[in-house]
């Protein structure tokens, strides 16, 4: 009787879901202490109301962008803690020593590291930048669908919470970050780990899809008058490419995860070994999403570099049209290469050869972009400030990593290198060197626009050198180890192999990166407290070229007091050179009202996800109903916007342009 009762209310949840050993208890307590610490801080400083009114219910893309970046940075720290454990284990688990982690725990950590870094760090930073910069660059005051935008953020947040809950209750997938069946099927992974993985990605993935569509429509429909597509800043072009990929690729992920969930929860046989299922179809489908995902992340990074290089070389971007074509070629080609992730699965040589050649072709538009940046620098007045340093670091790493990638595009070579640490070194060079460095460059570059003061340059440089040196120290050994036969997700190896020194070098490299992260945190704190010395009063600290620099820093909530006037590329640059003054009158502005409904929809989704993981069906129903009802309530609401009068805008504009400091 008791049992039935507990089963109904708690599903599969029981005391055994709590962490099994000291290390995992430590992780769980650390994870709990973050929200508790925050709650105490907010209560003591009486900031709950402020938080609710200014942040949680906001529909201002700039604030949503900042929240994305805060979550992503927090997750970067979580992912870095995972790295510390992985590297420690790999340095000491040799021969008779088994290291500090059990094999299954190690696999969970590696899976969590990959999942978190891709979905919650790289994607989070990317969407954060979209929100902060895209409306400003196209001269818009908002995104196309502000409520949808807030909902996307909160869905992303819910997915993040679900991943981290697995530290406290139950376990996480021990399957690798893409959870191939049959290992991820119920028979071989009977715990809730894979379910946590499925539902957190499912929820965050829907958020990404909605956000992708939102920014696609924003760029196509919300550009200021006069800015046709070929006059857009290159960052917006790259976002357009990225969002096109999101719109077409993310549905594949959603379907793929749903099918796996059906296999696990209601006993279908899509990817099982028996019953007519085919696990190879999962691998095929997940990579049909997975390869475009790489370019979803890297295209906006290319966009950031295009902005940074042009600004810091004080030249217009070289080869604008060829850049646009390169982006569009990459968008199309990235749908025709997915098999290069599973050359070894056993398709015929004709299939492998086709996808191998396609993969090599995609290197061409990428190369075009690299040369365009170099030609932009050629004879430019280059200022080597830290955004530019990140760019140069990127060129070095991306070229090495890219050549390793072209190598692996050759199927016979891939048969040697598949699943080895060589591959790990390759894709970390692309994602860290390409995407993360771009995010750091972007944060340094646009920080004054959002917060009104610059980050400390000196600490920024130190952080850069720590990252670059640490990165090379950490990953060059992995290339060598890969050649020697070390496989990925390796938690133990024989002493006679002679790998330990290289693993230790790699761990030292990771520690140097860790110092870099520490310096970055210090940079943020120090810059905040010394902000009086680096205030950006002009609104244009770098002598910028695109429209965002025409606004005062920090950008007022309405972005532009008057809609900007655009006739050419680099509109702000042109306006500055010709000293154009806008004499048109101010106009009324419509902005969306705050609402908690976006948050409530996502909270429903979170409850639903958690409930399905643990088979608590009553909660699943409540969660789903919460989301659906909130959605209906919102759809019925006709009064979602408020008007700000022209006189008020004029007053605020005079105030801000007068150099208002915080």
């Amino acid at each position, binding site marked *: 009787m008791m049992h039935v009762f507990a089963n109904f209310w708690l599903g599969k949840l029981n005391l055994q879901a709590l962490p099994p050993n000291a290390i995992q208890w430590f992780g769980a307590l650390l994870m709990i202490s973050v929200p508790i610490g925050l709650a105490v801080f907010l209560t003591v400083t009486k900031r709950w109301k402020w938080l609710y009114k200014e942040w949680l219910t906001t529909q201002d893309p700039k604030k949503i962008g900042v929240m994305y970046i805060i979550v992503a940075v927090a997750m970067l720290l979580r992912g870095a803690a995972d790295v510390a454990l992985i590297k420690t284990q790999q340095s000491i688990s040799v021969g008779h020593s088994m290291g500090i982690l059990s094999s299954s725990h190690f696999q969970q950590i590696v899976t969590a590291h990959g999942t978190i870094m891709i979905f919650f760090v790289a994607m989070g930073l990317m969407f954060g930048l979209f929100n902060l910069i895209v409306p400003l660059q196209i001269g818009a005051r908002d995104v196309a669908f502000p409520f949808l935008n807030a909902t996307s953020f909160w869905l992303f947040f819910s997915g993040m919470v679900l991943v981290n809950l697995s530290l406290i209750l139950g376990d996480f997938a021990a399957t690798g970050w893409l959870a191939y069946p049959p290992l991820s099927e119920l028979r071989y992974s009977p715990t809730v780990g894979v379910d946590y993985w499925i539902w957190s990605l499912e929820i965050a993935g829907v958020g990404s899809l909605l956000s992708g569509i939102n920014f696609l*429509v924003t760029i196509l429909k919300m550009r200021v008058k006069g800015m046709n597509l070929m006059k857009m800043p290159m960052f917006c072009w790259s976002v357009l490419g990225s969002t096109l990929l999101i719109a077409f690729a993310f549905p594949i992920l959603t379907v793929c995860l749903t099918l796996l969930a059906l296999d696990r929860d209601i006993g279908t046989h899509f990817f099982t070994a028996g019953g007519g299922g085919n696990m*190879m179809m999962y691998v*095929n489908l997940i990579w049909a999403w997975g390869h475009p995902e790489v370019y979803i992340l890297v295209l906006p990074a290319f966009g950031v570099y295009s902005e940074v290089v042009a600004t810091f070389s004080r030249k217009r971007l070289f080869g604008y049209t060829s850049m646009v074509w390169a982006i569009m070629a990459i968008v199309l080609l990235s749908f025709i290469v997915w*098999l290069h992730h599973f050359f070894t699965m*056993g398709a015929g040589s004709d299939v492998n050869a086709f996808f191998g050649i396609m993969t090599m072709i995609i290197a061409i538009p990428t190369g075009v972009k690299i040369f365009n940046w170099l030609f932009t620098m050629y004879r430019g007045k280059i200022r080597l400030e830290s955004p530019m340093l990140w760019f140069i670091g990127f060129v070095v790493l991306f070229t090495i990593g890219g050549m390793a990638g072209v190598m692996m595009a050759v199927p016979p070579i891939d048969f040697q290198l598949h699943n080895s640490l060589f591959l790990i070194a390759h894709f970390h060079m692309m994602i860290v060197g390409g995407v993360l460095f771009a995010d750091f460059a972007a944060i340094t570059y646009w920080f004054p626009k959002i917060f009104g003061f610059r980050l400390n340059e000196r600490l920024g440089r130190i952080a850069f050198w720590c990252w670059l040196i640490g990165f090379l120290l950490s990953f060059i050994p992995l290339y060598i180890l890969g050649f020697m036969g070390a496989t990925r997700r390796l938690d133990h190896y024989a002493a006679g192999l002679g790998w330990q020194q290289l693993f230790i070098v790699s761990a030292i490299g990771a520690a140097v990166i860790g110092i870099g992260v520490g310096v970055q945190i210090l940079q943020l704190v120090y810059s905040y407290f010394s902000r009086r010395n680096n205030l950006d009063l002009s609104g244009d600290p770098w002598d910028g070229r695109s429209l965002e620099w025409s606004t005062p820093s920090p950008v007022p909530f309405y972005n532009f007091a008057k809609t900007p006037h655009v006739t050419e590329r680099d509109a702000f640059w042109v306006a500055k050179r010709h000293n154009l003054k806008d004499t048109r009158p101010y106009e009324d502005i419509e902005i969306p009202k705050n609402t908690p409904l976006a948050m409530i929809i996502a909270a429903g989704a979170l409850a639903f996800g958690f409930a399905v993981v643990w088979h608590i069906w009553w909660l699943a129903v409540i969660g789903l109903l919460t989301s659906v009802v909130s959605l209906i309530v919102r759809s019925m609401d006709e009064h979602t916007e408020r008007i700000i009068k022209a006189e008020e805008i004029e007053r605020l504009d005079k105030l801000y342009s007068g150099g208002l400091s915080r």
Partner: protein
Amino acid sequence: MSSLRADDVDVLVSRHQPEQATLKGYVIGFGSSIILTMTAYLLARYGLLDKPIMVALLATLALAQFAVQLIYFLHVGREFSPRLKLMVMLTMMLIVFILVAGSIWIMNSLNGRMMNTKQMVQYMNNQNNL
């Protein structure tokens, strides 16, 4: 011009077209998509037809479903025709084609190189005798 609103989007979809999305349209769409899904499910679950006929039938039902979604929910064919919409539509067709044709090609190739059950048993026996 702070943001696109629902009616703006309708304008994008069907500018000055009198034929607004009606309740009737949605009901027809909803009903027919359910009928198509159920038919496909029942056929696959209980259908006693030959395999090739079954495959052809299921494929037809899937295409019909696709058409229903496009016509009744995405209102394709009723918009005033911006080039943009046509381009998006064609891109979608192209990518769906790449993914479907590519997957069939890949999975067929993999399938052709799989052992049948007899060979598998033989192989496993050989391995055990080692």
